[in-house]
């Protein structure tokens, strides 16, 4: 429809503006045009290096990870038909984080950098599969959510154990900071590591829109219309663990984007779960770019982590959502 085409234009514009702003803003303000020209000419000027080695990877990773989180949040909410669902619900985020912390703990990633994202992805997949097997093949959504809670608790316990056993306060600090969610000091190499599974997850989610729309009428009606709800579940769960696993591996735990963004944008796409997918991907990218600019602007003695900022903004929003839905049902 014409009305939401405008919304896509708007969101795309916002993402582009934030992307450019993310390149320009920082401790060292960049004259973008000059820096780009210098970089293009292959010069070794400080500005060219800041742009290509620091700002560009940071902005691109925020863009990709944010889009993944927004997209996966919308897909999970559509699949579970619940506005309180999030990509972390089926354990993929905490599974990824646990495996990543595990790898960090044993310091393998220092020698083999690709181990970290691969381990995180495996953790995400494993958590998802365990949730699915625990819940059983024809599980109700409540059972799935409960299984997700259990796996989340297990992964968190595992992380606590590693922190507890960490040999030095410095190691603890490193692990904790990583779990807070952070996009500083990332290279283009990190982007290349996250991209393959991210794109795989995106591709798996592309084209489920119509099926998620049909699911609005409940699983039974959707099934009578030729959709196989069990297959759809697997497809979405696995896609989410690919995309979210890759995002968590690269930027750590960044909460609330997958929850808040789909909810904010839903009214603008007529509440249709399918059309919410691309909108949420753009919205998620915009939100993470904005949050990452925010942590650079907000003056604190110790640099603020981006995951902390999204949680600070997101948690009150989550509370409002619960109060709202309570009002609706009472």
């Amino acid at each position: 429809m014409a009305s939401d085409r405008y919304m896509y234009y708007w969101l795309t514009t916002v993402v582009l503006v934030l992307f450019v702003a993310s390149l320009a803003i920082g401790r060292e303000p960049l004259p973008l045009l000059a820096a780009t020209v210098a970089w293009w000419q292959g010069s070794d000027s400080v500005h060219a290096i800041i742009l290509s080695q620091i700002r560009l990877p940071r902005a691109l990773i925020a863009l990709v990870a944010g889009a993944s989180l927004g997209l996966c949040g919308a897909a999970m909410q559509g699949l579970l038909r619940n506005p309180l669902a999030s990509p972390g619900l089926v354990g993929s985020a905490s599974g990824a984080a646990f495996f990543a912390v595990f790898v960090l703990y044993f310091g393998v990633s220092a020698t083999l950098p690709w181990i970290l994202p691969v381990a995180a992805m495996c953790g995400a997949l494993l958590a998802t599969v365990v949730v699915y097997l625990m819940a059983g093949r024809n599980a109700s959504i409540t059972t799935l959510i409960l299984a997700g809670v259990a796996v989340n608790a297990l992964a968190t316990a595992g992380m606590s154990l590693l922190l507890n056993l960490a040999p030095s306060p410095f190691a603890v600090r490193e692990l904790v900071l990583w779990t807070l969610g952070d996009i500083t000091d990332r290279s283009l190499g990190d982007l290349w590591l996250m991209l393959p599974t991210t794109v795989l997850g995106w591709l798996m989610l592309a084209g489920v829109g119509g099926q998620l729309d049909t699911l609005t009428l409940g699983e039974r009606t959707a099934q009578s219309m030729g959709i196989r709800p069990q297959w759809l579940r697997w497809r979405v769960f696995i896609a989410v663990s690919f995309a979210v696993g890759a995002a968590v591996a690269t930027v750590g735990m960044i909460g609330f984007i997958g929850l808040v963004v789909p909810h904010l944008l839903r009214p603008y796409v007529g509440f249709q779960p399918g059309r919410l997918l691309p909108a949420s991907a753009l919205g998620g990218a915009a939100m993470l770019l904005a949050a990452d600019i925010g942590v650079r602007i907000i003056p604190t003695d110790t640099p603020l982590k981006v995951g902390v900022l999204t949680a600070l903004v997101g948690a009150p929003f989550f509370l409002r959502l619960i109060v709202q839905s309570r009002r609706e049902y009472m």
Partner: protein
Amino acid sequence: MLQAQGIHISRGGRKLINDVSLDLSAGKLVGLIGPNGAGTSTLLDVPAGLVRADAGSVSLHNKDLHRIAASERGRVLAWVAQSGPVNWPLTVERIVTLGRRPHLGTWQQPSGEDKRAIDAAIAATDCEHLRRQDATTLSGGERTRMLLARALAGEPKVLLADEPIAALDLKHQLQTMDVLRRFAADDRACLVVLHDLSLAARYCDSLYLMHEGSIVAQGAPAEVLTEHHLRSVYEVEVESGQGQVPWLVAVRPAEKSSVVSSSTGEDIAGR
């Protein structure tokens, strides 16, 4: 066009459907009646592809239902739930548009032909004034009509409707039965679960009467809705008549001692 042979379904050691066969031929509106728990809804789930029978076979257009791809079945056959959920506050028009989904490719948007089918379905079910309304705010009856419109929008050949008039007011009961009547023409057929026996008698070409998972009577409404059957299956005494329209009223619960035998000759009250 839709045939079921020797369907058996048990769940948790309880027999829900016991050796049921039925035949739905083109141009027919067939009613499936029976008291609560008789298994009418469960039986409807089988051709809808929601439940796999433990034994027996279902064929659609002389082809085994299990050999038909789910997507193809979704185009040919539509099922209307007794009280289907609507999970997001979509507009009524968008809900009805979902009925076209089985005909559309992954990336395809509804075209002119789809829009015509949607408009026709909305008009037939008297939902025109609800078009732009939030579907989650509808009354029970309006929602039933919207869900029927969703099914009709898919232009199926076989319509399976589970108590489509239970929540409707008198006018819309008649309107909906008229819609089903008109639907069941040419190469289309409709199987409908009904509780209102007067309307069943008046609109259906034939009836299947179910009791405790089995079919105890079948045929033209007048043959099925006999005082004897109604006393043994529904356990009520009825009065009925054949005026301009056939009517049937339950007068009082039947005396236990008079509920002796069903058409199968078994003692139902004693089971």
